[in-house]
């Protein structure tokens, strides 16, 4: 049995459902990322798990015990969870030490244990020099680490993180990302991490849950999500992609309006109507001559080329007027206006029924 289970979880604000019928099972010690654009319901889901909100339908179970259900929920203080807030939520009237020791004091542990556990975690998070400072006297990165230390010192069963890195600058963000994952590997608590940044999700999580409009679009390993997106939304949101639409042709191909036939090695075809085909930017080959074969080849004109040092970013207008974005090695240099051929290899074409 999974450790943390969401079963048909639903939350409405007024008439609008912020989260609707979400099912998710998280194993003990797993690192899960809820990923999605703003307004997709990921933060609401996290706050439901934390117990700050009471669901309107469905259940939340931890270790088989029901913590939340429609109309009743165990208060946050009795869930044995920890949370890291986007704003860090450090109490400005307490020192670093007091902030970190707060949870232990509430658990009425002996003074010596509070002291030693707090000092240990402060050392792990490299904060021991700052223990008597107030949060107002710390930098953003230091505040972030205090909030991390405060969340970890209580040895929670479950750690919740609400966009914890969004207030940091880029370098620090990468460093903290790795630190968060390392601490997780060290202590092995079940972690639910909310973010809108796909790189954050890909680099930290065991299980990425892509959310859209209050529901889960796809849950899987980072590789699953990237290589085998289940929907157009996921394909677009993770990594960026080109979407071409057409009618299913035979068993494994899609015919687009401009005559282009794309054979797809993977994915699901829509039973009726249009099927979308996703091809990643860097999976498209740009050629000056027409490549051999009848399918997966289309001609076009270079509409824009940007030199980016490690590669070139092309925008190609293909027959029928659609624009395709392709990333090519620096050596492939085609000026704007030039006629080119695009090869979209079948193994990189993924058919998407949704």
């Amino acid at each position, binding site marked *: 049995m999974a450790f943390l289970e969401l079963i048909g979880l639903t939350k409405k604000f007024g008439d609008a459902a912020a989260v609707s019928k979400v099912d998710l099972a998280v194993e003990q010690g797993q690192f899960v990322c809820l990923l999605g654009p703003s307004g997709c319901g990921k933060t609401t889901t996290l706050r439901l798990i934390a117990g700050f909100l009471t669901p309107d339908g469905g259940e939340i179970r931890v270790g088989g015990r029901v913590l939340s259900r429609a109309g009743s929920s165990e208060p946050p*203080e009795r869930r044995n969870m920890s949370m890291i*807030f986007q704003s860090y939520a450090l109490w*400005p009237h307490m020192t670093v030490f007091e902030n970190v020791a707060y949870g232990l004091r509430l658990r009425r542990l002996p003074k010596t244990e509070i002291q030693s556990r707090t000092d240990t975690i402060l050392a792990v998070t490299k904060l021991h020099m700052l223990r008597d400072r107030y949060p107002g006297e710390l930098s953003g990165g230091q505040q972030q680490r205090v909030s991390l230390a405060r969340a970890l010192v209580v040895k929670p069963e479950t750690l919740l993180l609400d966009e914890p890195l969004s207030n940091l600058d880029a370098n620090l963000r990468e460093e903290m990302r790795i630190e968060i994952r390392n601490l997780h590997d060290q202590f092995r608590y079940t972690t639910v991490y909310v973010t809108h940044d796909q790189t954050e999700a890909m680099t930290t999580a065991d299980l990425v849950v892509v959310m859209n409009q209050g529901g889960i679009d796809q849950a899987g390993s980072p590789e699953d999500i990237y290589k085998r997106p289940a929907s157009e939304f996921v394909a677009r949101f993770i990594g960026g992609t080109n979407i071409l639409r057409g009618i299913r042709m035979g068993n494994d191909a899609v015919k687009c309006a401009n005559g282009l036939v794309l054979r797809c090695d993977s994915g699901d075809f829509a039973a009726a109507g249009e099927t979308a085909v996703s091809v990643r930017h860097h999976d498209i080959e740009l050629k000056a001559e027409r490549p051999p074969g009848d399918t997966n080849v289309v001609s076009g004109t270079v509409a824009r080329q940007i030199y980016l040092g490690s590669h070139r970013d092309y925008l190609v207008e293909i027959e029928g007027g659609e624009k395709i974005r392709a990333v090519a090695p620096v050596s492939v240099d085609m000026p704007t206006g030039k006629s080119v051929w695009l090869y979209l290899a079948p193994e990189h074409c993924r058919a998407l029924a949704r």
Partner: protein
Amino acid sequence: MTSATLTAQRRYGFDFSRPVFVLLALLLCLLVIFPMFWLVYYSLRDTAGHFTLGNFIALVADPTMVRAFWITGLMALGVGLLSTVVATPMAWLVARTDLPGRRIVRVLVLASFVTPPFLGAIAWEILAAPNSGIINVVYRWMTGNEAALVNIYTFSGIIFAIACYTFPYVFTLVANALDRVPSDLEEASSILGAGWTTTLRKVTFPLVLPAMLAGALIALLQALTLFGTPAILALPAGFHVITTKIWSLFQFPPQPGLAAAAALPLLIVTVLLLRGQKWILGRKGYTVLGGKSGAPRITKLGAMKWPAFALVGFILSLTVIFPYAALIKAAFTQNIAEPLTFASLTLQHFQFVFFEYSAARLAMWNTMLLGLLSATAVTALVLVISYIVTRRSFKGAAILGFLATAPIAIPGVVLGVGLFLAYANPTFMLYGTLWILFIAFLTIEMPAGYQQMSSSMSGIHTDLEEASRIFGASRLKTLWLITTPLLKTSIIATWCFVFIGTIRELSATILLTTANTKLVSVVIYDLNESGNLGAISVLGLTLLAISFAVVFVAQRVPLMSGSRLQARG
């Protein structure tokens, strides 16, 4: 299995917040609705306890009563008008020009704010009574004239004396509005070719007009519901206003039904005026949106600088400097009219008040006791109420906010009547105890305390509290460990505010006090009847000194350094 575990856990750690909510709701209903219920009830009963409209008929039939209503209305209009006319230019000069000493002006306006109106009225008695008033004495001495120059015991005198202590309302509102008008609105007007007077007339003035009207309404409302100043100045002048009339209905033989009936129109007018004020201030499009757009533009006065300074100085002399000087002189000299010489100095008034006059000592003790109790109780109450309301922890939490603000619409005299009717009966027997005064102060001070506390409370990020919850603290524990320490400054401010408000209250107190439960404000009023102005001045100055001391001490208590509070989040 699931529902069993859930209930079992609920029992294990009982959440107190819901019972607290219910208790508070009941308490507020008791404070606000109960006395108002009895007010309406008594106004509709005759002495035998039957339903009647007789009280209202008697009200309309009594020409002295109708006259009191008229006089009150005219007086309030006069005060509203005078306050606005005086305060608006002054606010503009202070907020938007290079007038010398602008900060001192603000401080002095604040001082007239803090002065209890009844004390100001007495100060003006000392200054402008027709015979003994210092101004008239000096005038006669200088001109040899026999007549009096000014007489405070007149209709216009009363308007003046009240306006001295209501103009700060208009001043503060208009000055704040002017501070908030972003300079680019005025610069936009200038760049399109308007001169500074045109800009002032067409842009700045219309933008602060709502604030001005709102201030005028408050001044008017104060005048309408004030008891002290009219009682001190109008009764010798031989006329009544509505509040003094209600008070006289409590003198022997008491006519509570009639008093209740007379109090109701005052209540209704207050509610309507406050609605009007809210409507004026709340209209969208008129409010200037918060300003990142630059500091307000300062107008150079040039040659008009010193005349303007003189004008402001003159106004402040009338409202603060002369009255305070008069009180100090009266406190230290034998006879208020005699010229100030070294030989005339005396401490006998101090000796009288502090050592000989036992009523004053009892009143001091009562006042301090009630001040401390009310301030502490109100602060604790509004802390919990505004927590529940701003955090919307329950459906219907907003009702607490409504109940806590409702007493703002109940004039002191009206509340006094209501409380008298509710508690001065054989069931409660609270009349003649300090409890009934305590209840009155709790009710009167609740709205201001609540507004102050809830606005600071909503400034605290909810994350800080949620963090505490997830680390294991219950709602109440979080309130105690996180919210309260973060609110320390506003808690102290609220406490001081309530304390100062309590020790100067007269309008409700005058109806609820008895020989054993006299307060300083009442003693001052009594002493005024017997004409002992020296003792009054000593008591009044003591009240003021305590008020200022409380503010001073509260600001100096080493709580925590400001820098620590500037943390993020």
